[in-house]
């Protein structure tokens, strides 16, 4: 918001008289080379349970960094919080667990700072695909450290949906009209684009996140056709869980978290990754540009990426670690969970998952700047849902 205010001369004069925290203060000049003493506190913006006491309590004891958490319900909310108070986390927040649909927005908006991955010992153990993914590494510079990921799966009610679906077409057809649900998130356009990529190759879609105007229009019209088939767009995981449990919804797009919660509640559901592949989300702990406690932040990033902690977090939330060494720990905590969460898959598995990244105008595949950016995606999504 300070960007807007600087245009007002009068406002600037008043600001000079009052004490305004100057923007840009913080570890913004080059990355640190070692982690100093903890500052005693750590303020995070997170997906709920990303700093769950079951694994965060030991961290607080070890380092003395007391965690204050702000739970966000959506990527939009995370971005808005990071941008408030003048941007860069407002001088309030240190870390944000941004998903791929938010991370590039934060990087280009100048709200996060580069991170020295050499200070995170477990980073070397990560699966190669998560060391420098396109959604958090720009021009070779790391803007955070990957933490966990999950696929966007097709969840269905095993009693009412027969035979078991094998294609994403199931949520675009009128067979289950009025009983379908998909997430309320502009990035869902990529799911439609992925479906079109495989079923209508003539459109020439090479990357579901890099769409030209006509490709975006095709995806939008597919989503508009889908809208009357939907029961609703779900906004949080618990929405989808209660909808499946209550029988309001029989089939839809979701995450392994929902499936596991539903199975624990004895609901007859199963999930699958259809033949077209799937999109996936991968979360990154990013360091705010104006983080007031950078040392505690680095300590946390180093702590939570250790294999045994990754395993704990994976089972608490319902997601997959980026550190394959977590596999035995997961199996110790819950038998067979390593395989259930696809952590033991070969690297070829990951090529079927198209990870979220914020759409930008630059097209990697056609070397031009004519792709639609997130602004255009948001407008298109509002057209669909409005």
């Amino acid at each position: 918001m300070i960007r807007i205010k600087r245009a007002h001369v009068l406002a600037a004069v008043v600001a000079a008289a009052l004490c305004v925290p100057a923007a840009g203060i913080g570890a913004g000049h080059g990355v640190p080379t070692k982690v100093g003493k903890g500052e005693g506190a750590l303020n995070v913006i997170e997906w709920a349970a990303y700093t769950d006491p079951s694994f965060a309590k030991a961290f607080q004891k070890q380092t003395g960094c007391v965690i204050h958490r702000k739970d966000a319900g959506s990527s939009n909310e995370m971005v808005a919080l990071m941008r408030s108070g003048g941007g860069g986390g407002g001088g309030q927040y240190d870390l944000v667990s941004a998903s791929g649909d938010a991370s590039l927005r934060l990087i280009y908006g100048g709200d996060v700072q580069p991170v020295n991955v050499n200070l995170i010992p477990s980073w070397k153990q990560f699966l190669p695909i998560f060391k420098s993914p396109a959604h958090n590494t720009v021009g070779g510079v790391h803007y955070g450290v990957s933490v966990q990921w999950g696929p966007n799966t097709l969840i269905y009610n095993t009693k009412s949906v027969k035979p078991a679906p094998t294609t994403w077409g199931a949520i675009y057809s009128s067979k289950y009209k009025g009983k379908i649900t998909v997430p309320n998130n502009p990035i869902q356009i990529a799911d439609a684009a992925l479906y079109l990529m495989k079923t209508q190759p003539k459109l020439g879609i090479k990357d579901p996140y890099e769409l030209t105007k006509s490709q975006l229009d095709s995806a939008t019209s597919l989503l508009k056709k889908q809208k009357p088939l939907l029961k609703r767009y779900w906004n949080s995981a618990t929405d989808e869980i209660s909808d499946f449990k209550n029988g309001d919804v029989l089939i839809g797009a979701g995450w392994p978290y929902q499936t596991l919660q539903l199975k624990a509640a004895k609901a007859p559901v199963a999930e699958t990754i259809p033949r077209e592949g799937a999109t996936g989300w991968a979360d990154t702990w990013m360091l705010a540009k104006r983080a007031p406690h950078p040392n505690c932040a680095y300590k946390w990033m180093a702590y939570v990426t250790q294999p045994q902690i990754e395993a704990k977090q994976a089972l608490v939330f319902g997601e997959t670690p980026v550190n394959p060494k977590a596999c035995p720990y997961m199996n110790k905590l819950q038998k067979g969970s390593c395989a259930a969460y696809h952590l033991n898959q070969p690297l070829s598995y990951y090529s079927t998952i198209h990870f979220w990244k914020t759409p930008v105008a630059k097209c990697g595949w056609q070397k031009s700047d004519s792709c639609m950016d997130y602004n255009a995606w948001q407008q298109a999504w509002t057209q669909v849902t409005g």
Partner: protein
Amino acid sequence: METRATRIGLATWSVLVILFLWIPLVIIAIYAFNSSNVQSWPIPGWTFHWFRVAWHNDDARNSLLLSVKVGAATTGIAIVLGTMAATAIARFNFFGRESVSFLLVLPIALPGIITGMALNSFYVFAGLGFSMWTIVIGHATFCVVIVYNNVLARLRRSSTSLLEASSDLGADGWQTFWFVVWPVLSVALVAGGLLAFALSFDEVVVTTFTAGAQQTLPIFILDNLRQGQQLPIINVVAFVVIVLTVFPVALAQRLTQDTGVIRRGGTAAVVAKEA
């Protein structure tokens, strides 16, 4: 005055409306004892488990306490500012009178997110650190209008001659306030204050942008709604809060018990009562 049929009809309607208001609350109370953490109907089993969990949950207790503090501060500010503004509008005619109503209604009429962002940028601008008081200021902006509207509606229906009569009879400022102004205004103030407290107690959007690391009760509830694993805790919290607030609300109602005197006997009764 009303016919018997009218009276029965009104009583029936009232019962139905009260049922409409309360059945969902009863359902919330039932869910507080739900043995599953997924909300379905009918509930699979009964348990006190969530009460124990909620009791031991520090966040639940701290957020409840913070909400009470914020609500009290906000209501105090809203009552003072709202009454002053309503009195000025009701009693005096001056240029720009209607715009005051309009300005006061804005915080409620605009999406909370706009109020939140506007206040957030103001706080940064003024160098104010986020604290309980930034939340209170945010809440006060939309709570003032509630007291203001209630007091204004009440003042419109009362007449200044009561105040004149009181002075003519020799009452000083305090006596006039206690025996004339307070009975007239008390219902509106108490009702307005209760509504303002309720709105502040329950507010989540503006609070997200005006709170730092502070967690008020609605924010705690929203977090738990999203996470879902401990969903029944919020039903427990809601149930406990309803039970606890019976006392202050009943008390507030008693304070405004006696104001029917003006209605029943006409203006002469006011003087007779105080003789």
